[in-house]
């Protein structure tokens, strides 16, 4: 067997089975270290790579954000403004990001395949690999599997989203429920992380001591694996309960709140910063309703600033904290929006040529990548499919997508589309 730092990802079938027994649902967390040879575990912890994916569900219009092209016949009405990179312009709707453009990169030539939502969200978030008859994990679950937790006390994959939260398994695909995500509905942790008011900390400790005592007795003369795994799941639960401060937004600094904005996306990106600081490996922040088929320009005017300001604040804050070099930031959607403006003054779905913003963790600073036709409608040349972006992401996280594979039911599976390559021109 290969002993790459991520050798566990290509473990044998038997190895897979025993892991399923030891790990609890979403429990990449505890237990994980014990699966790796000690040297390997250390190496991964040392790498300390983290990811924040800001997912704008639907599509952000590239013309109204990162690729304004005011002279294009497809341009909208907004100004294009100078950025901190000489000669590069963004839309006036992203003034804060324009000021930190020299710290980030923009790929303006994403060219993906799917113009539909039903398949677009999972296809993009799974990296659109070759169909091997299995359901691939979304990026967050994949990173949880491939890197494990950065801080063993915290789940490796947390998803901040509007609406309801809870433990959501479906993003894990064939990796299994334990690589699902802890979702914070409107930024709040699931209710079960809170001890009911009727149980004091003291009582909680006492009742858990009783439980442990009962388990010690029961496990003394029995085969260990299930029993240990069960106890571990309680340890993990208590660890998470002990760290619930990181979910408490009343702890957030008032000035920070103002810098990030009081709208949900602003609050959630600020919360993402906090979770990254606490050592969560992968944080996804979702904002819904970025699908401006109608009234695109009035909506963009109101929506796009909601990502601009907190994203720029996040880049600056992570840099100030010395975290940007090991934290990869991604701002993306399912696709871009059509150059053609429709009857409702909206823009529809456009996979042919759109923009993704990246920063940190080995991404070049101030690189604006990709050549499009003058009107911005199409890529000049090939463009980058989502598979290329996944190769880039994995490579930046220290995972070699050529050498690391998933092992599922005896089948060796590429972690990213086999025909794609990392996008070297965006990497340091």
């Amino acid at each position: 067997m290969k002993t790459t730092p991520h050798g566990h990802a290509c473990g044998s079938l038997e190895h897979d089975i025993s892991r399923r027994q030891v790990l609890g649902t979403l429990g990449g967390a505890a237990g994980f270290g014990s699966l790796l040879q000690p040297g390997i575990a250390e190496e991964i912890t040392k790498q300390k790579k983290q990811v924040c994916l800001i997912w704008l569900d639907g599509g952000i219009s590239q013309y109204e954000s990162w690729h304004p092209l005011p002279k294009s016949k497809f341009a909208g009405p907004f100004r294009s403004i100078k950025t901190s990179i000489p000669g590069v312009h963004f839309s006036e709707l992203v003034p804060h990001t324009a000021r930190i453009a020299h710290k980030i990169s923009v790929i303006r030539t994403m060219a993906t395949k799917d113009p539909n939502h039903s398949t677009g969200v999972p296809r993009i978030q799974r990296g659109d690999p070759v169909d091997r008859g299995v359901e691939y994990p979304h990026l967050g679950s994949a990173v949880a599997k491939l890197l494990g937790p950065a801080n063993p006390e915290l789940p490796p994959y947390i998803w901040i989203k509007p609406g309801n939260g809870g433990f959501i398994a479906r993003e894990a695909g064939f990796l299994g429920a334990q690589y699902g995500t802890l979702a914070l509905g409107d930024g709040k942790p699931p209710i079960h992380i809170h001890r009911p008011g009727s149980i004091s900390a003291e009582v909680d400790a006492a009742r858990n001591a009783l439980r442990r005592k009962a388990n010690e007795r029961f496990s003394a003369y029995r085969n260990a694996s299930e029993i240990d795994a069960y106890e571990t799941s309680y340890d993990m639960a208590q660890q998470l309960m002990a760290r619930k401060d990181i979910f408490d937004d009343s702890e957030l600094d008032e000035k920070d709140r103002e810098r990030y904005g009081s709208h949900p996306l602003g609050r959630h990106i600020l919360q993402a910063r906090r979770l990254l600081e606490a050592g969560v490996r992968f944080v996804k922040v979702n904002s819904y309703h970025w699908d401006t088929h109608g009234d695109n320009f009035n909506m963009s005017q109101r929506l796009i600033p909601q990502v601009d300001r907190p994203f720029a604040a996040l880049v600056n804050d992570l840099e100030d904290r010395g975290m940007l070099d090991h934290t990869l930031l991604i701002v993306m959607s399912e696709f871009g929006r059509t150059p053609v403006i429709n009857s409702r003054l909206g823009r529809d779905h456009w996979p042919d040529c759109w923009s993704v913003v990246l920063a940190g963790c080995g991404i070049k600073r101030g690189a604006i990548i990709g050549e499009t036709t003058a009107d911005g409608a199409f890529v000049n040349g090939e463009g980058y499919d989502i598979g290329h972006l996944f190769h880039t992401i994995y490579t930046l996280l220290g995972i070699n997508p050529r050498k690391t594979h998933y092992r599922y039911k005896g089948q060796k599976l590429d972690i990213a589309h086999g025909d794609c390559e990392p996008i070297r021109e965006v990497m340091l």
Partner: protein
Amino acid sequence: MSAAPLDVKKAWESRSIKHERQLFRAQFSPDGRFIAAGGQDKLVHIWELEGEKKKVLDGHNTWLSSLVFHPKGGKLFSADYLGVIHCWDYENSTRPLWTIAEADRDNVRALILTPDGEHLISAGDDGVVKAWKAASGKPVTTMEGHGECIFSLAISPDGKHLVSGDLLGAIRQWSLQPWKPLRQLDASPLHTREENFIADVGGVRSLAFSPDGTLLAAGGMKEAKSNSFCPGKPTVLVFDLESGKVKTELKITGKSDGPFNALRFLEDGTLAGHTEMLHTASELTFWKTSQPEPLHSISNGSAYDLSLHPDGRQLLAATYVSGGNSGNGARKRFHEKYLPNTTNLRIFSLFAKPEEKQPG
């Protein structure tokens, strides 16, 4: 032609002018000789109806948001999404007479002239109503009160009152002699913000006074379902100006999912309005304002502006025409044919079509 009796039920398309880009504003000149139109291509287009001579005024750097003729003719005012207003002597020159560089902090959304032609009034994203000397573009006064973007303006037939409508559904009534706020009308059904929205949707997109000055029609849409497609129920609220209350709520019978962008009263008190529909046909609708149901409707593409000819018998609609490329990508294969949508400036004659003499 003008002698024919008004009969919207027999309205017919008497003329149309095509343009290769989407135009959002189209107006008849007060003498009826010209149509001015503007939109995505940043130009003011002037068509002389007799002889179809065409002129282009190039001075804006982005989409046009508003176009209005001086009531006495000779001058045309145009505004754009960068807050610039130009005044044009459109018959004699292709250069602006004067320019207001930053009429509004962001965008000017609406322009109107007082009936006496003395003042130009503008409003837009900063929520401030501003009055300018129509002759010089010199500022006269500003009126604050709207907290949000203003989309629409209208002036009463007697020239004494101005109304302005905003995104949140507030309509403010102002006195023009002297300049001062009067009262607020509630058109808040035209604004929607559900818990899961991340933006306000809708707004008072159009306003029109009835010819006798007793009614005010406010157009937009109700009950928007999302801030993505922004689909809603096209609605006109007709206010009784004496009480300030909604008297009738006008509906459409066909399918449309966008707001009423334009409202025009005809001389007999009939109201004409036009809305938008995603990808398919919308309609031009006529009502007697006492009845919620339309008197008549004509299927038409989505339209963004209506203008009434000085003869009171012709209605101009800046109408969307699909260029065949709307809807979701991917279009890489059709690269060469990927072009913007276009416009048809359709003129509807509001009376029975004269019988054509059969040749021979």
